């Protein structure tokens, strides 16, 4: 399985994502420059975390117009696997490949910490190796992760099982305190109706080796691998 990691000016988790796919998962991985029009035949595109275009205007708002995003949209429309992490999630929202938008965290603070997220839907290519209700220990690092959508969109997303992860306490319970950024329904990760595009604020690529403090992010990469093999 071949992974491609998109690089925007201001991406800063591209090398982490590359390392996670190439070394932790052991799969061929390549960088994809945002100005190119070539996805290089990859099976899964990762939009990494960081501050694309300095997060000017809004997080992900300028990256959305990068040349490569045309190919990404076509790839996604044809069922290609796309994973957006943190800033990558914000880009997917701006591209309208996922519903909703991000507001500033509820306490107006940049949050950089480990959180626990509960796996809500194991019937996606990103989570098929996990189990429903499983609590994963994965770090977050963001200012704008407070997911928002109008009530009718929230209902649609919930009814359709598009919620993949929610912030929870270490036991897997949803509490107000564990919803660190104030997202509606504590949503931490979301997929599209076709289940081939997922965005999540936590960083699975930073939790793939014991030395990093957690290996819980591996389940997402391993799910993708199983799906493609």
């Amino acid at each position: 399985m071949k992974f491609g990691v998109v690089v925007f000016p201001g991406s800063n988790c591209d090398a982490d994502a590359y390392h996670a796919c190439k070394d932790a998962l052991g799969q061929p991985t390549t960088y994809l420059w945002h100005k190119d029009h070539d996805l290089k035949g990859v099976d899964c595109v990762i939009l990494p975390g960081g501050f694309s275009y300095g997060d000017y205007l809004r997080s992900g708002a300028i990256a959305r117009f990068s040349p490569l995003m045309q190919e990404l949209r076509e790839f996604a429309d044809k069922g290609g696997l796309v994973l957006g992490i943190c800033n990558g999630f914000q880009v997917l929202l701006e591209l309208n490949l996922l519903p909703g938008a991000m507001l500033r965290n509820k306490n107006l603070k940049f949050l950089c910490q480990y959180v626990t997220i509960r796996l809500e839907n194991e019937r996606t290519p990103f989570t098929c190796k996990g189990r429903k209700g499983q609590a994963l220990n994965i770090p977050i690092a963001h200012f704008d992760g407070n997911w928002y959508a109008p009530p009718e969109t929230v209902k649609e997303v919930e009814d359709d099982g598009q919620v993949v992860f929610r912030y929870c306490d270490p036991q897997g319970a949803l509490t107000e305190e564990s919803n660190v950024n104030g997202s509606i329904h504590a949503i931490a990760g979301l997929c599209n109706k076709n289940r081939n595009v997922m965005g999540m604020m936590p960083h699975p690529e930073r939790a793939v080796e014991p030395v990093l403090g957690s290996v819980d992010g591996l389940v997402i990469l391993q799910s993708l691998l199983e799906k493609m093999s």
Partner: protein
Amino acid sequence: MKARILVSFKDSVLDPQGQTVRNALHTLGYDAVEDVRQGKVFDLDLSGITKAEAERLVPEIAGKVLANVVIEKYTWQILED
């Protein structure tokens, strides 16, 4: 020709930055301030187009790029030189 675009959160969307500013104003004794909504101002310098073209272009730019219409609303006006 100049154009000014104002972008702010929709009324249905919580504006925690505006609330923080309001709280600070209350701390300073400005109790008459009931609410604060924070937004962005964009001043565009336009050239080579007519006013009619600008009236088409400016809202297009506002809706497509400057505002995220899921959470934000915008108003615009063409300012004469």
